[in-house]
């Protein structure tokens, strides 16, 4: 596998037989490959719910790799006083990614993996008052910086996917969300820990443009097998984390969302009001002028007011 081809890499993952390290290397080549324009180079993942076997290897890998970074901890289940298992119920202040099983009937069920969608127009970045949430324009990775975050939780209010989580039980709480392993696995091995660990090839890591091509290929290959929709292609302006599924996405807890990013709507209004700070300055100027004019009209007798100015005032009311 000295010079792995793209197809070879994909097949390798699909069969789930390629060794993890090789997969990582292959993905690294993908990540650093030819530049086709910035949007083309954005990194992301394609999660195929029909391939996921629910082994949660990705969850374990995520905590193993990112444990210190973001202080992820194990979560105990009520039945497990000895803490033998990590049993998170949901994304949380110590869980960045989570596998859930949705059962529609005995025949129809699907696993689903939650983690940050890495929106192309992320609400969380748009609202963070101190730029603790940032989006790398080159890679498209939405990252969090605990050293600037004030913990206002506006990002949580804003995110349509309810992804950012807060460490409610900590005296020094952080926001926890997937950062595509930019400081850990991605930096070291060029692939996210979850994609690297997945034995079923359900998580494909790579450039968004190529992931989209692959997603469409799968849809075309097995017509009727999948729902004919790549979740994340257009949702809230597009996300770099894409989903394929056979069951309706909103059943899997992925909300039905409009194509226009909420951040665009709010920023448009905010910008209209505060464009170049002209309006506030104009308002201040106008008010000053009015107030000064009013003061000049006042009869001055040591600041106290007589019946005269009472009458004057009542003219206007």
């Amino acid at each position, binding site marked *: 596998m000295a010079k792995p081809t793209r197809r070879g890499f994909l097949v390798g993952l699909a069969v789930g037989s390629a060794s993890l390290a090789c997969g990582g290397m292959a993905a690294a080549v993908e990540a650093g490959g030819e530049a086709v324009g910035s949007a083309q180079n954005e990194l992301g993942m394609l999660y195929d719910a029909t391939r996921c076997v629910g082994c949660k290897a990705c969850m374990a890998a995520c905590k193993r790799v990112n444990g210190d970074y973001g202080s992820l901890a194990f979560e105990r289940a009520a039945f497990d006083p000895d803490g033998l298992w990590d049993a998170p119920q949901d994304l949380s202040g110590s869980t960045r990614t989570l596998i859930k099983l949705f059962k529609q009937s005995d025949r129809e069920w699907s696993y689903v993996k939650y983690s940050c969608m890495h929106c192309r127009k992320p*609400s969380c970045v*748009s*609202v*963070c*008052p*101190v*730029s603790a949430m940032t989006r790398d324009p080159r890679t498209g990775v939405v990252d969090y910086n605990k050293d*600037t*975050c*004030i*913990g*206002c*939780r*506006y990002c*949580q*209010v804003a995110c*349509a996917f*309810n992804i*950012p*989580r*807060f*460490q*409610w*039980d900590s*005296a020094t*709480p952080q926001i926890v969300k997937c950062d595509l392993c930019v400081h850990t696995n991605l930096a070291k091995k060029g692939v996210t820990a979850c994609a690297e660990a997945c034995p079923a090839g359900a998580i494909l890591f790579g450039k968004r443009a190529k992931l989209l091509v692959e997603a469409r290929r799968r849809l075309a290959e097995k017509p009727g097998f999948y729902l004919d929709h790549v979740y994340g292609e257009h949702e809230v302006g597009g996300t770099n984390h894409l989903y394929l599924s056979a069951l309706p996405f909103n059943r899997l807890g992925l*909300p039905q*969302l*409009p194509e226009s990013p*909420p*951040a665009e*709507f*709010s920023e448009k*209004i*905010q*910008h209209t*009001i*505060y464009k170049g700070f002209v309006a*506030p300055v104009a*308002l201040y100027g106008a*008010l000053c002028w*009015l*107030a000064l004019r*009013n*003061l000049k009209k*006042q009869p*001055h007798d*040591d*600041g*106290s*007011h*007589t*019946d005269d*100015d*009472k009458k*004057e*005032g*009542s003219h*206007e*009311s």
Partner: protein
Amino acid sequence: MSHDDFQRHEAGIFTPAFFILLLLTLIGFFLVGLRFVKGIGAVSNMSDGYPWGIWITYDVATGTAIACGGYAMAILVYIRNQMHYHPMIRSAVLTSLFGYGLAGFSVMVDVGRPWNAYNFFIPSKWQVNSAMFEVALCVMAYTTVLLIEFLPAILTRLEEADSRSLQRLAERLHRKAGVDQDRLMTRIEWARAGAAWLRPRLDKVLIFIIVLGITLPTMHQSSLGSLLLIASTKLHPLWHTGFLPLLFLINCIYIGYSICILESVLSSYAFKRPFETKELAGLAAIIPWVTAIWLSVVVGDLLWRGQLGKVFAFDFYAGFFLLEIGLVGCGSFILFSAKNRRSVRWLFVSAALIVIGGALYRFNVYLIGFNPGEGWRYFPSLAEFMVTIGIIAFEILCYKVLVKILPVLPRLHGRDHTAPAVPVAPPLPQSN
């Protein structure tokens, strides 16, 4: 106190009410302490789905609106040139100062990493797309402005206080707290000289500060509405609209006037002073017009967005929407009648209805109409309530103590039927 027309409220500080308020304050502050040791989750029911609870909804979003009395009065006095409302401003500014100060305190309790707040002053970290950034800076600036607006009152007091009463104060402090009397007196002399130097200079620029005090709330009160613009997928369509900033702005103005009426009636009642009926009636005449504008924007916007049908769904959300509209509408309707405006009782009832309705609007936007998706639920925990109650108790406590220490309330004699007393910012820039 010489010609200063304000007076201290002569009464003992340690009343039973004082101890009740003190107890509530202590409980609240104990829980705040717990929060800093054990994390926010230990005292509150907030969750990742409802990351903002009543601390933000009440203490910040609603509390600052209730503290808008100073803002609303300043518009009236300085912009609409109705100087005869001047005497109502000093207590309005004082309560605004408390309201905003404690909102700031609540924010520090609510945010998870307050030690990082210095980033607000680092330009490279500024994030001008964020309504929160705008709110934070404006609120900090406005609190400073309120302090400066209140300063002349303190300076005048310092400057003109006759040394006998100061002597007495020093003696008291000496006896009670063991403060060195002579040192204290020289310090006070210094402060007095400083005040005498500062006050005329401050008077010259004060009007510009006051106008800043009108501009800033205009900005951040509308931005408090903008905060929820981003939640287009979570906030119920009855409330989510591009007009949120405008609606919040108008909302804080009518809440501001109504709260002035409530405060005035309540403090007249509590401190056994005559009611300022004449001024109140004048204020009350303004309110229904403001609320009428607000209601037309609400309804017009629903029509325009084609969401009016949601009102007649008569579900949970429609119920709260109708309640909010009903409260504000009823209160305003009462005030349209000039006869009602002269009755203290009707004034009080209608102002209360409007404040509650206006506050409910903010609750609807921040909490009740906010739905992050299936499986999330929020109702504040007892401890969470107690923190908020503790903060409110602290606010009332300070007000009650302060009016007994500083001359805040208008002097009684001589103001019974003629012109009211001296304005809060007494001699305004007369030289220019």
